[in-house]
């Protein structure tokens, strides 16, 4: 007799622990693979998790096995034209015995790369590990354009249109009860006294006393009556607060200098910075658009591929990009509907006569419209006039404008954090 058991509801993921152990063991390799992926992948897909490849030889488990050489006799199926004595060349490719090892090692002839899947969280963990990323997701957005009015209990100050009648009257009633306590106790005592005196009737002395007491009760009642029915103090108003509701749409402008002075490694740093910003936004908005604006002496809106990987030479006029961004905002992203973020990366080079124009464009056309403008300068050299101009803007628009210098990839996250830290 056989037992048939339905195990489908049993715990799945039994291998989770083993898998974690594996990831832990090959952390270094995986990190390298993730870094490569970051550099080759599109910003929009960056947090998808994905495939990771590490060299097979790094993770093989060694066992004793025969190496090449010696005499071996192997039997194959499917003979077509061989007869005894035929001579065959050894298969090409270094290890003629590559397939010969198949028996000894269970790896057999395999791919050189060991490829597997990691999920989004793991991918991000690995990606940001050297950026020392804390739990960024918890961060709330400081600024949000649209507000929602929500009830938040009651207050004692407010405008008449928010008056809550029931609450106010209840408060008045409570006040009256509270403040008249002494009088009412007195009245109760007097009434009790009258009761005892009534027992002594028709004693004339008692009658007088009763009358006096009644007078007293009347006076007390009058005092109670004199208490105001409603007081300023009783008024209760509905408390409505405006809570910020992040609008569900955001647009992110990536502005980058692609002039000759920007090397690929600078661009890679910039890309990681843009990725961080993108991820930050994805935690807060349902829908995100990314606009890539690159510039040398004039600016152009491009797709991502071109943005990161095409090379231009020539001078640098930053204001061209700022103007183009402003135009795009005006035409396509009305600030009422969109949360606008601009991230600009550059090595700090700009044509001398242009930097003050940049400041004007920023101050007049861009900063009033955007949530946040972050400028990173990726350079090891001294700051140039663009930085100096921007410093003036920072002093003026500390709320929405931030700027930092990045020297090497390790700086990206700290800088990002500084840029987005809560300002009191």
């Amino acid at each position, binding site marked *: 007799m*056989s*037992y048939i058991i339905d195990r489908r509801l049993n715990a799945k993921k039994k291998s989770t622990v*083993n898998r974690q152990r594996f990831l832990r063991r090959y952390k270094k390799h995986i990190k390298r693979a993730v870094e490569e992926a970051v550099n080759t992948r599109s910003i929009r897909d960056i947090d998808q998790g994905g495939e990771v490849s590490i060299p097979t030889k790094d993770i093989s488990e*060694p066992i004793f096995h025969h190496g090449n050489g010696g005499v071996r006799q192997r*039997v*194959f199926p499917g003979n077509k034209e061989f007869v005894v004595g035929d001579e065959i060349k050894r298969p090409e490719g270094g290890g003629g015995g590559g397939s010969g090892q*198949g028996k000894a090692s269970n790896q*057999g002839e395999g791919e050189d790369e060991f490829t597997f899947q990691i999920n989004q969280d793991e991918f991000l963990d690995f990606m940001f590990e050297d950026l020392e990323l804390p739990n960024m997701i918890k961060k709330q957005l400081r600024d949000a354009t649209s507000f929602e009015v929500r009830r938040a209990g009651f207050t004692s100050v407010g405008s008449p249109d928010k008056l809550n009648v029931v609450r106010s009257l209840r408060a008045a009633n409570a006040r009256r009860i509270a403040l008249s306590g002494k009088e009412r106790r007195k009245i109760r005592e007097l009434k009790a006294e009258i009761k005892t005196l009534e027992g002594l009737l028709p004693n004339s002395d008692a009658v007088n006393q009763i009358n006096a007491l009644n007078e007293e009760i009347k006076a007390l009642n009058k005092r109670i009556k004199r208490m105001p029915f409603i007081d300023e103090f009783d008024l209760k108003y509905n408390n409505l607060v405006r809570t910020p509701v992040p609008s569900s749409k955001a647009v992110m402008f990536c502005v980058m200098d692609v002039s000759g002075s920007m090397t690929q490694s600078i661009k890679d740093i910039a890309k990681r910075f843009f990725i961080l910003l993108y991820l930050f936004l994805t935690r807060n908005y349902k829908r995100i658009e990314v606009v890539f604006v690159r510039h040398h002496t004039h600016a152009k809106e491009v797709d991502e591929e071109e943005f990161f990987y095409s090379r231009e030479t020539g001078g640098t006029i930053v204001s061209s990009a700022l103007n183009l961004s402003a135009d795009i905002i005006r035409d396509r992203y009305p600030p009422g509907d969109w949360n606008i973020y601009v991230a600009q990366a550059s090595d700090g080079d700009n044509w001398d006569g242009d930097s003050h124009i940049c400041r004007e464009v920023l101050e007049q056309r861009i900063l009033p419209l955007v949530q946040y403008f972050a400028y990173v300068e990726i350079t090891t050299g001294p700051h140039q006039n663009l930085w100096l101009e921007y410093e003036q803007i920072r002093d003026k628009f500390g709320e929405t404008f931030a700027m930092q210098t990045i020297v090497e990839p390790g700086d990206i996250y700290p800088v990002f954090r500084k840029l987005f830290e809560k300002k009191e």
Partner: protein
Amino acid sequence: MKKREPISTGSEWTFELIQKYDQEIARVAEHYGLDTYPNQIEVITSEQMMDAYSSVGMPLNYNHWSFGKQFVTTEQQYKRGQMGLAYEIVINSNPCISYLMEENTMTMQALVIAHACYGHNSFFKGNYLFRTWTDASAIIDYLLFAKNYIAKCEERHGVDAVEQMLDSCHALMNYGVNRYLRPQPVTPEEEKNRLLDREEYIQRHLNQLWNTIPKKDLIKEKKAPRFPKDPEENLLYFIEKNAPLLEPWQREIVRIVRKIAQYYYPQRQTQVMNEGWACFWHYTLLHHLHDEGLVTDGFIMEFLHSHTSVIYQPPFDSPYFNGINPYALGYGMMRDIRRICETPTDEDYQWFPDIAGSDWNETLQHAMRNYKDESFILQYLSPHMIRELKLFTITDNSTLSTMQVSAIHDEEGYQKVRENLAASYNIGNREPNIQIYNVNVRGDRSLTLRHYMHNEQPLGDDTDEVLKHLHRLWGFDVHLESVSPEGEIIDAIHCPPRPHTEEVA
């Protein structure tokens, strides 16, 4: 035979149907005299199947990164569609546990029941290697013990320490088996009770071993007896008993890995037979049901579709060629034995005078019980089978510039091909023969191993790495000498590596 109503006609399975199929298959299996452990059939999802896959088919196992690696590979291949999951996993235990996958059709479930629950199951119960080396009733309990023990070690000594230990043991796992001794069956309860005693005993024993107060140096160093007296082929056993520096818990881990290696030892030697036997019986059992009219023609067509793809042997020059398919070879040979019994030709009478024309079922049962792959092929691979698979031998002598075709499927070649093929299933030939030769008890405690070379084949390039693991376990220097059949030391590897002074030695 009177036609009956088929058990089912659709492709959907239900538990009632599985039970009915199982009953019918059990009835037919009994008719053919298959002796099995009771069956425990478990229905699982594909995810669970992947889990089972990656813990080497065991329903529970200790944690180790290599299983994670296996899992990740399986998952990746499965998701990419590079491979389907196996239809079944069956565990040599009592009761015999087989997994059915939820996604399979009714036909596939029936196929798996026939294949695993009656084919493999009867093989586990009948084959001499399994009877000798494994204790089906205790394995699950033992694994549970191992899992808990190792988890406890991780708590006490840290995951890394345990992982290192396991890595080293895994590297030597294939050398952790006894080939010629019957291990005493020990229940997990006894195992636990004896644990403390053993730890204590080993420590005491060890102290004695090392406590060699030099007596008057009358005996010359050369004549000093070797330790161990006879070479030891079970490296892990030797380590467990004799490694001077291991802590008791480390010894126990060595022991666990060794025990599990021993459990798998028969499976590694009977793959062709085991799969051949199971395929032969699923084919026979389901066709019997079809003859009785219990399954429909559609059922049998679907069944044949899977069956033929399982037993397909691509020729050596096909892109799908990946060695000899054990299913194809095993199944082909089982069928062939039946053919030799039922309709023998003159050639069969000449080659197999003892079985030609005999009762096929009895002959097959006998073969199943008393052989392993190597001897099975040596005994039963017929010229007919060699022709059918068009087998040929290539001799690859690394001293020559080309490889030679040394035998093909013709009159002169049959015997040779058969011997060559059988030899390739001999674990002794497949794996380097490495044994513990000596311990320098009075000196630096270094451990010397000897690799007895087979056909002049050197060791592979992993050897250094494995020696590092061995060195970790032993704690002192490790030497590995490759010895030719004439007893001449041809090559030596040392861990830690020696500067080039080998000529002196």
